[in-house]
C-alpha cells in the first residue's frame, strides 16, 4: 500500500469517526439549556464563571459540590425522588423544614401552624412577601395547587400526602388541610421529597428553568458533563442576601473518591460528601481541609424470616441477634457507622437511648442448643442476602459468619443487586435479609409502617411478621405523634422492645454516619440527616 493511499485511509477513518459524532450543527455548549448563561458569557468582569473555578484561581464565592453520581434525573418537583435532592433542596422549599436537634419541624414557607380535631385538621399560615423564581407571588392558592398536583401525579414519594382528604385556601395566607386520618402533617410537609411548594405553571421538566422559591435558581444544566449543574443566587429571595454568602453552586460529578480528594486538596471543590475511612482520617489532619461527622437517619436492618425456615423458631432468631459482634463491627467501620439503639435513629421522635445491643456468645450457644443445634448437634444452615458492592454490609456478614461458625452454624451469604435481592425477598427466599432503611420524611413511623406492618404480599416487610396487635400499635402512632408527643415516645419505645426483644424479628447493628470533608474556609456547616447529602448552601458563609 502506497503512502498516499495510507494517508487517504487514515483520513477516511478520521472522517468517519468525526461524522459518527457529528451533526451537532453549530450549537453553543450549555446554551441550549440556559440561553442567558451563554449570552452573558462575553468575558466582561460581571460575567464571572458559574462553574468550577478557573485553574489556580480561588472559588470566588462558588460552592463546588463533588457528588459521586449524576445529579439530576427528574426536574419535576412533584416526582423527583433521587440524587437531585442535593440540588432541589437549594432551589425549592417546603412549608416546614426539620430540625434534628430540636426533633421537630421549624418554619420555612409557613411561619406557624396548628392542628385540631385530634390531628385530622391542620392550618398553616404562609410567609408573606415570597416570590417564585418565575416572578409570581406565593399565596395559599398557589401552594394548594402545587400540593394537589404532586398528589395527582402519584410519582416518587407522593404517598406522603396519603392522609390528605382536601386542601382549602380560605385566604391568601392560610392553607387548611383536612385529613382522612390523623397524621403529623408538619413533619410530612418538611420532607425532602414531594413536599416542595412550586409554581405549577412554571414547571419545566427539561431543566431550563425552575419553579421554586428557594435561594438558588438554575444557572446551567449539561447532562453527562463533569460540571453537570450550576445554580445561581435568586436575587428576589425572601431571606435576602449578605456579601459573605455563596452566590453560586456548582455540582462537579466525581465518581472516584480519590479524585474527589485530590480536587478538594487542590481547592477545586469545596465539599466532598463521602470519603473512605483512610482518606477521611487523612483529611482530619490536612491543612485547608476540615471534616464533619454526624449520624444519619439511615440504619442497617438484619431482618429474620419469621414465617418459614429455621429462623421461624424464635430461639434461632434470638441466638442470631446475640451472635452479632456489634462493638467489633462499629470499630471495624472506622467511623462510618455508630452503634444503634433500637430501630429509630437518634434525632427522630421515637429514638430510644439505652437499647444498645451487645454480643453474647454464651447466650447464643444456649439458645441454639435449646433449639437442637449448636456445637455438639447437627449443623444449622442459614441463607443470607446483602447488597452487592457494599463494603460495610460485607463486613457485618464476615464477622457474623465467623462468629456463627464457632457455633456450628453455616451462614451462606449471597451478595446481590438490590433488584435481585428484593425479588428473592418477596418470595421468602432467604433466612436473613440485610438492608438499609431511611425515612422519606423525618418520622420514625416509616420503619414500622413499611417494614413491620402485616402484609399478604410482602413489599418491605421482609421479616414476614404478621401480628394484629403490632399492627394496631403501629396504626396508633401517627395520631399520637400529631397530638401527644410524650405518649408517642412511649409507644415507639414499647414497639421497638416488642419487635427486637420479644419477637426477635430484627437486629439493628449500626446507624450510618456521614463523613464529610470540606474546604476550611466554609463557615456554618452542619449536617441535617433529614435531607441526605444535602448542603443548604444559603446557610453557609465563606471566610474572608
Amino acid at each position, binding site marked *: 500500500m502506497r503512502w498516499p493511499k495510507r494517508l487517504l485511509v487514515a483520513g477516511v477513518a478520521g472522517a468517519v469517526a468525526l461524522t459518527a459524532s457529528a451533526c451537532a450543527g*453549530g450549537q453553543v*455548549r450549555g446554551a441550549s439549556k440556559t440561553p442567558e448563561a451563554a449570552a452573558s458569557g462575553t468575558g466582561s468582569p460581571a460575567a464571572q464563571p458559574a462553574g468550577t473555578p478557573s485553574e489556580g484561581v480561588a472559588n470566588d464565592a462558588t460552592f463546588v459540590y463533588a457528588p459521586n453520581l449524576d445529579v439530576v434525573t427528574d426536574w419535576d418537583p412533584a416526582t423527583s425522588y433521587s440524587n437531585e435532592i442535593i440540588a432541589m433542596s437549594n432551589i425549592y422549599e417546603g412549608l416546614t423544614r426539620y430540625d434534628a436537634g430540636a426533633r421537630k419541624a421549624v418554619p420555612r414557607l409557613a411561619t406557624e401552624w396548628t392542628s385540631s380535631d385530634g390531628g385530622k385538621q391542620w392550618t398553616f399560615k404562609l410567609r408573606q412577601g415570597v416570590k417564585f423564581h418565575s416572578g409570581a407571588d406565593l399565596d395559599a392558592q398557589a401552594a394548594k395547587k402545587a400540593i394537589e398536583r404532586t398528589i395527582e401525579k*402519584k410519582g416518587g414519594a407522593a404517598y406522603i400526602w396519603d392522609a390528605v382528604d382536601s386542601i382549602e385556601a380560605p385566604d391568601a395566607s392560610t392553607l387548611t388541610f383536612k385529613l382522612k386520618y390523623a397524621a403529623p402533617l408538619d413533619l410530612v410537609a418538611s420532607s425532602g421529597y414531594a413536599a416542595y411548594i412550586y409554581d405549577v405553571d412554571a414547571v419545566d421538566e427539561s431543566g431550563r428553568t425552575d419553579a421554586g422559591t428557594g435561594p438558588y435558581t438554575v444557572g446551567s444544566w449539561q447532562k453527562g*458533563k*463533569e460540571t453537570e449543574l450550576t445554580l445561581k443566587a435568586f436575587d428576589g429571595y425572601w431571606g435576602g442576601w449578605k456579601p459573605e454568602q455563596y452566590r453560586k453552586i456548582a455540582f462537579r460529578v466525581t465518581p472516584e473518591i480519590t479524585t474527589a480528594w485530590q480536587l478538594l486538596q487542590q481547592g477545586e471543590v469545596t465539599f466532598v460528601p463521602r470519603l473512605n475511612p483512610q482518606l477521611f482520617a487523612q483529611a482530619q489532619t490536612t491543612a485547608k481541609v476540615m471534616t464533619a461527622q454526624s449520624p444519619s437517619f439511615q440504619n442497617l436492618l438484619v431482618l429474620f424470616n419469621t414465617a418459614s425456615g429455621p429462623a421461624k423458631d424464635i430461639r434461632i432468631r434470638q441466638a442470631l441477634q446475640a451472635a452479632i459482634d456489634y462493638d467489633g463491627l462499629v470499630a471495624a467501620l472506622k467511623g462510618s457507622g455508630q452503634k444503634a439503639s433500637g430501630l429509630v435513629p437518634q434525632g427522630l421522635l421515637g429514638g430510644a437511648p439505652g437499647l444498645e445491643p451487645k454480643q453474647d456468645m454464651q447466650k447464643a450457644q444456649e439458645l441454639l442448643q435449646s433449639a437442637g443445634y449448636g456445637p455438639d448437634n447437627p449443623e444449622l444452615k442459614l441463607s443470607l442476602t446483602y447488597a452487592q458492592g457494599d463494603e460495610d454490609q460485607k463486613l457485618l456478614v464476615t464477622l457474623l459468619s465467623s462468629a456463627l461458625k464457632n457455633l456450628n452454624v453455616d451462614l451462606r451469604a449471597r451478595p446481590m*443487586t*438490590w433488584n435481585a435481592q428484593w425479588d428473592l425477598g418477596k418470595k421468602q427466599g432467604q433466612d436473613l435479609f440485610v438492608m438499609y432503611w431511611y425515612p422519606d420524611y423525618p418520622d420514625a413511623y416509616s420503619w414500622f409502617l413499611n417494614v413491620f406492618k402485616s402484609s399478604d404480599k410482602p*413489599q418491605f416487610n421482609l421479616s414476614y411478621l404478621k401480628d394484629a396487635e403490632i399492627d394496631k400499635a403501629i396504626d396508633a402512632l401517627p395520631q399520637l405523634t400529631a397530638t401527644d408527643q410524650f405518649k408517642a415516645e412511649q409507644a415507639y419505645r414499647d414497639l421497638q422492645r416488642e419487635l427486637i426483644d420479644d419477637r426477635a424479628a430484627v437486629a439493628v447493628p449500626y446507624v450510618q454516619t456521614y463523613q464529610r470533608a470540606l474546604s476550611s474556609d466554609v463557615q456554618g456547616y452542619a449536617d441535617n440527616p433529614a435531607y441526605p447529602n444535602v448542603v443548604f448552601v444559603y446557610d453557609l458563609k465563606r471566610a474572608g
Partner: protein
Amino acid sequence: MPRYLARRLGQALLVVAGVVVLTFAVMRLVPGDPAVAFAGPKATPEQLAQARARFGLDEPVPVQFLAYVRDLFTGDWGVSLRTRQPVRDDLYQAFPASLELVGAALVLAVAAGVPLGVLAARFRTRLPDLGVRVGSMLAVSVPVFWLALTLQLVFAGNLGWFPVAGEYDASLDTTSPLTLWTNITIVDALITGNWPIFTSTLRHLVLPALVVAAYPAGVIAQMTRAALIEEAGQDHARMERALGFGETAVLTRFALRPALNPVLSLIALVFAYSIVNGFLVEAVFNWPGLGRYAAESIRSLDTPAIAGVTLLVALVYVVANLVVDVLQGFVDPRARRR
C-alpha cells in the same frame, strides 16, 4: 472484489446480529426487575406496574425481542433507567469525549511507539533494545487504573503540573462558550478558534491520554521492531547495504515503509480496544466519556444503557475490523482469497 466485500459485510452483519441477541438476552437474564431500577428502591406496586408497562416488560419475551430489534433499526435504543434520557442521546453525548481521548492517546502512541520500535531494531540485542522491550512490556502489562492514579497523584496532586480531572475548565463555558460542530471538544475548539478551551482541553488531555496511550505505544513499539527486523533481513536491505547505505538509513529510508503495513492494521484494532481500555481511565480522571457512563450504568444496573454501550463498542470493533479487511483486500488481492 465485490464478492469479497459482500462476504466480509455479511460476516460483519452476522456479528452485529449476534451482539443484538446477546445484549437482549443479558438484559433479560440479569436477576431482578428492571422496573425497580427505574421506579426506585421504594417503589409501590402501582409504580412498578407502570414502569413495566412503559418498557413493555409485561409483554412475552419474543414480543419484547421483536420490539427491541425494531426499535434499534428505527434509532430508538431505549431509555436509560438511570438518566431517564434516550440511550442514543446519552451515547451521543459521551462517545465524542471517548473518541477525543482515544484519538489523542493514539497520536501519542504512534509518535512514541514507532520511533522506539526503530530504535530497538537499530540497536537489536543491545542496551536500547533491551530498554525498549522492557519498557514496552511494562506499558502493556501495567494496570491502567494504577497508572492513572499514580500519574494523577504525582503530576496533578503533588507537582500541580496538570489538572487533576475533567475535560476542560468548566468556567470557560461562560466566558468562552464553545460552538459545537463535531461534539468533540478539542476539534470544535480548533475549528472555531476557541483558544481558551483548546489550551485548557490540551492540558486536561495530557495525563489521561498518556495512560490510555501506554498499551498501544507498547504494542506498536514491539510490532514496529519485529517488522523492521524482518524487513532488514530481506534481499532489498542487503542490496541497500551493498550500495553503501548505513544501517540507520536502511531501516528508516527503506525498511520502515513496508514494515508499517501491519502496524497500520494494528492501529485500527488497538483503537477499538482502547475505547474499552479507557473506561477506567475516564473514571479516575472524570472524563465525561463512554467509560464513565458505562461505569455508572453498571453500578445502577441500568440494562438499556449497558446494552447500548455494549452494542456501540461492538459496532466500533466490527467497523474497525471491516475497514481493515476491506482495505487489505483492496491493496493486496491475495487477501481476498483468504
